[in-house]
């Protein structure tokens, strides 16, 4: 698609960076899921988050499945898995765009913006869990075939591995380190999590997410690991995006058409879901409740991470097609985000 400066063989050399990016993406969301912090969140917000994420996931899954059946020549199972991955990436939102725009938005809307940021942070949970479960029950090892027995075994394996890795980290983390030693430890740990996941054909995002959840609930909130993880956000995010760009398959009109449909359906479903259910938590800011779905349009780094996770674990055409659709859709969503966020929360409440 591009200048072809980096030959295919050389791409394999970038594997450690891919592992690092995926390990980081899962862990950074996982460590935000501490029981203590979640208890402070209004139950209605959690309910709204789950409902809107599941509505988008189900809606995009149906539409993508139909489009894939008509446009691409894949088996039914591969079509389902590819559509499910696209739908999972569509379900998530990014709080980053909201956070970046917050200073330019009316101060009177800060309450609504805070709630929307919370929703955008939390709606990755059902998506990552869905992906993790999909990878277990439709494992790459079995050629994406459904197997209940294998699925249960893989799911148990994911959880056991996550516990073992969390224990390992806890042991490592008990010692005192210089900053450069902490960075080394963090990089090694993230690459190891992703490496084990790829080795056992599990989802690195799911595995590192569970590790993150465990760590968030057994460590203290002021532990340096959290600071270190968030302070490395920018370089890891850049690495993830560069790799996404490098692995992007050739341009095709059919993929762009699917991506446009996914963007439109996702946006419509987000708006509908937030309009119907948003009044539960946003009724004090009626306009935000009305157009709140628009403010959840940005997808952030996790969407391509989900696509990469699928592309690098499963063989065949399905992963390539799904990855391209996810990336095209993400680009469109990121372009639309500033306009739509301003539309949703950019004016004073009526």
């Amino acid at each position: 698609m591009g200048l072809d400066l980096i030959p295919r063989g050389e791409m394999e050399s970038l594997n450690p960076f891919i592992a690092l990016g995926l390990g980081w993406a899962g862990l950074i969301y996982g460590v935000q899921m501490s029981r203590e912090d979640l208890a402070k969140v209004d139950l209605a917000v959690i309910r709204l988050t789950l409902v809107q994420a599941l509505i988008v996931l189900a809606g995009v899954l149906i539409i993508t499945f139909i489009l894939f059946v008509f446009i691409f020549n894949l088996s039914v199972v591969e079509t389902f898995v590819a559509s499910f991955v696209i739908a999972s990436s569509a379900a998530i939102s990014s709080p980053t765009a909201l956070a970046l725009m917050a200073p330019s938005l009316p101060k009177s809307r800060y309450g609504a913006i805070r709630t929307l940021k919370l929703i955008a942070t939390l709606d990755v949970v059902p998506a990552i869990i869905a992906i993790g479960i999909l990878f277990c029950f439709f494992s790459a090892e079995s050629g994406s075939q459904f197997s209940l027995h294998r699925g249960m075994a893989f799911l148990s394996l994911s959880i056991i591995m996550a516990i073992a890795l969390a224990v390992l980290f806890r042991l490592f983390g008990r010692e005192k380190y210089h900053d450069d030693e902490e960075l080394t430890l963090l990089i090694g740990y993230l690459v190891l999590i992703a490496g084990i996941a790829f080795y056992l054909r599990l989802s690195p995002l799911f595995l590192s997410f569970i590790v993150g959840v465990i760590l968030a609930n057994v460590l203290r909130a002021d532990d340096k690991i959290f600071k270190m993880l968030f302070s490395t956000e920018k370089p890891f995010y850049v690495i993830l995006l560069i790799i996404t760009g490098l692995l992007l398959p050739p341009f095709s009109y059919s993929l762009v058409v699917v991506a446009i449909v996914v963007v439109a359906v996702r946006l419509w479903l987000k708006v509908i879901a937030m309009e119907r259910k948003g009044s539960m938590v946003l009724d004090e800011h009626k306009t935000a409740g009305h157009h709140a779905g628009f403010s959840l349009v940005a997808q952030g780094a996790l969407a391509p991470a989900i696509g990469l996770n699928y592309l690098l674990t499963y063989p065949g055409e399905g992963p390539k097609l799904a990855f391209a659709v996810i990336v095209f859709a993400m680009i469109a969503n990121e372009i639309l985000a500033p306009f739509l966020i301003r539309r949703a929360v950019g004016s004073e409440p009526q």
Partner: protein
Amino acid sequence: MIFVRKIVIMVMLLCLAFIVRELQAPMGQTTPLAQSAFALGFLLLFAFLFGRIATIVKAPMITGFLVAGALAGPFALGIVTSQGAEPLRLMDNLALALIAFSAGGELNIGQYKQHVKSLMWTLGAQTLFVFTLVFALFSILFISIDIFHGSTLISVVAALLLGIVATANSPATAIAVITETRSSGPVSNMIIGVTVIKDVTVIILFGLAISLTEALMGAGGGVGFGFAGHILYELAASVAVGVAIGFVMISYLEGGDDNVALFLVGMGLIVVEICLYLEIRPLLAAIMAGFVVENISAKGEKLMQGLRRSSLPIFVIFFSLAGQGLDMDAFLDMWPLALTLVIVRMIGVRFGSIYGVTKAGEDASIGRFAWTGFVGQAGVSLGFALMISTQFPEWGPKLATLIVAGVVINQIAGPIMMKRSLMLSGEAEIETGSQEKKLSDNAGLVS
């Protein structure tokens, strides 16, 4: 207690690695991504642990990284296979490029101007002493033990090449130990200056030696004096690429961005890719780039700060992969001869350094402490061994095995000796053992 905890973590890490491998076995072939990510993740943590243990026993961390790499590699535990490590070669080269930026950045002309005489004398004397001793002794040894099946010519030629290879050092090792101990002063400057300049001179000498060998043998892998020309091209192109990269780095560093680590990783990758494409030396190009930034702009300190911040993960990757690649079979095959080579080389290095420093009119104690910085050998020597093995397939592999076995000993012993010397000279800011004490002020990574 700290030691016991480290052992517990190590056992747990090993158990986890073996369990993962056992679970994977029935699944069949893994992807290169899975192999390399698993290998790197394991190696980073395993080597990091060994590095920390090394400081407890007063050895430099890089010795721990090397030992960990060798243990995890195919000759011991087999957790990191050659296949798994293959895609990590880019990481290896990237780490080398970043270390080389650092080496170049340490070469401040102003600082070295008044010591040029002593650098040159040390370099010349050391090269001459090491070459003469190794060449003389091994010519006799090779002939007397009949290692090359009665050919006196091959024995002499092999000793000549061995003598040249023995003069090579490892700037990466020297930089790593100096960085770890935060050393500064005349001994550290001498070590950096000589190892970096020698990296260039030894390449030229080796090119000439190979050409001479070819002329004497009258046959071989088609090298001849064209090979010397190729070496000259490599050097000139490496310098040109390095200068160009240096100017690119200056223009970025002069901008306002203080987060230079990611930029340096990108530049390191660019240097490596360009050099691989042009078939030139990334080490020399990256040294040149660092040198240009340090001496042409005022941004040398910004460059060094960015490199220092990310130096540990770079060293862990580079030296654990170096350890993983150490050929233990070669060492076991040739250890008596290799040990002889190491001892003779050390004698040459020690007396050459002291003689050179004294002749230049400087304090002889600089030479007495600095010589240990020239013991370590790594990439360049291994590259020469590979070249000898390929160019002279009839007798080259045997000589290459001896070189590799010598490198194994030098690379383990060299950093330990160097760290001790830096501590004795009073140039090391961090003394072994006090590292743990200093850390007691810091909070742990987790509570």
